[in-house]
């Protein structure tokens, strides 16, 4: 006879391949990405250069992209941007982030699928693409191409910060096992 206890000694066996598991994980990752966005608002990286950010939130997105796939990464990123927009960044910054994030994610997805580059290279291109997307949105909003004078600053910072985030993503994915639900190893 089996005695029922309110708390089972072992956690319930939920398959890591199940949709429920992935949705729960995505929610946790979205929350983490939101916190990273908030940290970035609190601590400006280089206040003298607007638009230059470390992009810590992108760390979560890259890992989600590699381990859960494009659709989950996109949803996590959209939730992060929407929540961050309502909570602390404001309407204009949300538009910039949105265009940056979508372009960045598409670029990172294509480069990841090409299998030519490591996480570092993918993240680097993602950083540069993110800043390019933001600048495109800025150029559309203020309807001038003059903002592209600032392009070199944003591309260089995007590559440097993206490489930094990529190295961290590489180390995290190496140390923490995601093998049971990974799609692209």
């Amino acid at each position: 006879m089996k005695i029922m206890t309110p708390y089972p000694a072992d956690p319930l066996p939920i398959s890591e391949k199940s949709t429920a598991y992935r949705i729960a994980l995505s929610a946790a990752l979205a929350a983490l990405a939101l916190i990273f966005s908030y940290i970035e608002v609190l601590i400006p990286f280089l206040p003298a250069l607007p638009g230059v950010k470390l992009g810590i939130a992108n760390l979560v997105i890259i890992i989600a992209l590699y381990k859960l796939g494009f659709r989950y990464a996109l949803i996590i990123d959209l939730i992060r941007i929407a929540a961050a927009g309502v909570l602390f960044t404001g309407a204009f910054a949300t538009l910039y982030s949105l265009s940056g994030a979508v372009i960045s994610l598409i670029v990172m997805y294509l480069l990841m699928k090409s299998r030519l580059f490591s996480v570092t290279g993918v993240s680097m291109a993602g950083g540069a693409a993110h800043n390019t997307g933001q600048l495109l949105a800025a150029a559309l909003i203020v309807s001038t191409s003059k903002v592209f004078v600032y392009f070199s600053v944003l591309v260089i910072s995007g590559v440097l910060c993206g490489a930094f985030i990529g190295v961290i993503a590489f180390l995290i994915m190496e140390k923490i096992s995601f093998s049971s639900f990974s799609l692209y190893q």
Partner: protein
Amino acid sequence: MFRKSDIILAAIILAVGIGASVFSAGGGAGEKVVITVDGKIFGTYELFEDRIVTIRRNGHINKVKIRDGEVSMAESDCPNQDCVHQGKISRPSQSIICLPNKVVVEIKGGKNEDYDSISR
């Protein structure tokens, strides 16, 4: 952690980025240099047309140099010479002010004042 292809990718991105930046830097779109003396507009000049503007007002002389999209106070007969020492300005909403002679040199953007004010 790094692959050779990553470094090639970085080099390509940087080259394209800097190239596009240099390309768009040429031929400024409608930025003006506005000079006011004692609160009244003395004259408005194109930022990307090289010239030297000599301002003679109230017994004082100032010379403003506009060159390659940069503006500087070349000469002034004011006692402190702060305006001359300030150096060059080139972006919208920047200004050089010569307080003793009441001369204000300001760069005004074409359509937008300065996009930095709404981005972060």
